């Protein structure tokens, strides 16, 4: 890590009390969260190997290293709100209830895929996930529209959550969205997942400020928070606070989560811009490792059980892969179907 990264990651985060959260959530819920994070890790690791075997094509952006963030967010906010994210969307789809099979089948381009084999790795959906969006920052107006719809429909117990990488902060769509959300009191939570790299461009070469959320939010009369994205508990505490605040105030909030992606930007990126030492250093703060340690310390987990859970999740991912390989290809006769939605009242 370079100096700036160090100064960012060692800056102060939203205060969180790990023992208190462990106590409040209890063993069952925490093991469930660990399971989800392990499912995401194993799903993507298997999918990467499927990619290497030529079973998956196109772009493939792994969330590996960032799992704690969206796992905590969905744990706190629940799947009954609106969600949107970038093309790095595998984890959020899994967390919001898409099955490993439908997602793997989508990666394989098969008819049973999450989007019938039309979307691929960057475009996963659920009934509340508005998408994996392929244009950097393109999801920010969409999530703002979801928050607008909540306000229009007078729904006060839901929010819209919009994830993006730090690279999106340079896009106009981000700024127009924040201005509109603040101007119109829209319940939208914007989450900048700062993994320090926009493809191969380091954040300090792309974004003119540090502590991005805190610096940008002021300009839109919004509140801002900074979380430690490697620490499930810090994310949990932060999202819990923000959810409560947004529901109470019906105002948008901007969050920066400091994180690391352990892989390249996409599967075709060997990450030559990052030294082995830097990567090794950040792997020490693997969110899975940190959660595992905390749960072992709390007496809720032992090494053996961790391995067992990991193995179970790996088996789920492998089974999804095997099943996806057997899913039929989409029939070319359907190629031109569904460009337009059917008519009639919806």
């Amino acid at each position, binding site marked *: 890590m370079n100096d700036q990264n160090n100064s960012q990651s060692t800056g102060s985060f939203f205060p969180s009390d790990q023992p208190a959260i462990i106590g409040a959530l209890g063993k069952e819920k925490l093991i469930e969260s660990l399971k989800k994070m392990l499912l995401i890790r194993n799903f993507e690791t298997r999918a990467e190997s499927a990619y290497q075997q030529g079973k998956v094509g196109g772009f493939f952006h792994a969330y590996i290293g960032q799992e704690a963030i969206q796992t905590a967010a969905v744990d706190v906010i629940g799947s009954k709100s*609106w969600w*949107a994210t970038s093309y790095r969307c595998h984890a959020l789809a899994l967390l919001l209830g898409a099955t490993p099979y439908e997602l793997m089948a989508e990666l394989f381009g098969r008819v049973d*895929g*999450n*989007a*019938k084999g*039309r*979307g691929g790795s960057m*475009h996963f*959906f659920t*009934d509340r996930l*508005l*998408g994996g*969006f*392929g*244009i950097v920052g*393109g999801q*920010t*107006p*969409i*999530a*703002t*529209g*979801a928050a*607008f*719809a*909540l306000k*229009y*429909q007078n729904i006060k117990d839901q929010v819209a959550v919009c994830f993006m990488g730090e690279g999106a902060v340079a896009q*106009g*769509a981000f700024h*127009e*969205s924040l*201005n*509109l959300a603040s*101007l119109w009191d829209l319940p939208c939570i914007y989450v900048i997942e700062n993994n320090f790299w926009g493809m191969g461009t380091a954040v300090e070469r792309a974004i003119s400020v540090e502590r991005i959320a805190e610096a940008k939010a002021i300009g839109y009369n919004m509140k801002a928070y900074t979380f430690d994205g490697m620490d499930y508990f810090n994310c949990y505490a932060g999202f819990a606070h923000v959810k409560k605040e947004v529901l109470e105030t019906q105002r948008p909030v901007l969050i920066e989560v400091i994180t690391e992606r352990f892989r390249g930007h996409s599967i075709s990126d060997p990450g030559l811009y990052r030294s082995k030492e830097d990567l090794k250093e950040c792997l020490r703060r693997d969110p899975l490792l940190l959660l595992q340690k905390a749960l072992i310390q709390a007496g809720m987990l032992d090494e053996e059980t961790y391995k067992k859970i990991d193995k179970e999740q790996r088996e789920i991912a492998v089974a999804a892969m095997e099943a996806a390989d057997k899913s039929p290809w989409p029939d070319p006769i359907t190629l031109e179907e*569904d*460009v*337009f*939605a*059917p*008519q*009639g009242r*919806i």
Partner: protein
Amino acid sequence: MTAGTQVIELREALRQAIDEEMIRDERVFVMGEEVGDYNGAYKVTKGMLEKWGPKRIIDTPIAELGFAGLGVGAAMCGLRPVIEFMSFNFSFVAADQMISNAIKMYYMSGNRYSVPIVFRGPNGAAAQVSSQHSHCVEAIYANFPGFIIVAPSNAYDAKGLLKSSIRDNNPVLFLESEMDYGDKMEIPTGEYLVPIGKAKVVQEGTDITIVSHSHMMKRCREAVKELAARGIRAELIDLRTIKPLDITTIATSVRKTNRCVLVEEGHIFTGITAEVGFQVQQHCFDYLDAPIERVCQRETPMPYSKALEKETMPTVERILTSVYKALSKKL
């Protein structure tokens, strides 16, 4: 004026269409620059803020990308936005949200999210508004699968088609002409719809088919009148909907007249007439007695000067010249 009709301007027909659909469906709302307090840059939404309030008539900041995208998101979550662009030239700022999100979403999401949204506003040239406010956008957007593109030329069609557009479950580009907003027409007072995807033969004839849409229909009507005075009976077709294209109506006409002139306000290279012309030769190859002629905007940005603006746009004279060429006659 006959019973059950009203004589109104085209802008009022548009207002009535939106108003009726807002009564019919509470999910319909209007969003755009100056649509509320200012009563609309071209007064299409005059009085609507007072009637409906700021929840459903929403003034935006100057942020086309933001509010167009917000509309797409709202449509994905169950609302039915009518987004006004003060000029369709400003839609270029919003293009990513329209192209990457609105039109691809239903297909790309495996049918999970439809996007029932109307983008409407004036398209093409007004009077001397120069290069950056005069472009015709239909040919650009028609290249993208997923857009429905509607371009009425009169108040009757404008009202009926806008109502159909708001009820459609897909992204619709509804293209108006600033030059036509004040045009008066006698139309029914009662509710009616005009279906999307149907062209209209507005003048029957036997000697040649002229096809156009939107503001250029006026030039074509003048040309047809002039031709009639000279003993040439031209059949005039108003596309009304550009996409999906009603090639059946056009081909039926060309098979009768065996000659065809296509007129559009937009530029000639990959213009709407290029597509229509290609489809006409596909459907009518054996019926054509002469090459298809096109009258389009010349290949320049729109100049400001009156003298130049007039020259770059299709004129009655240019239409007549093309008709005579297609008829192999001397003007």
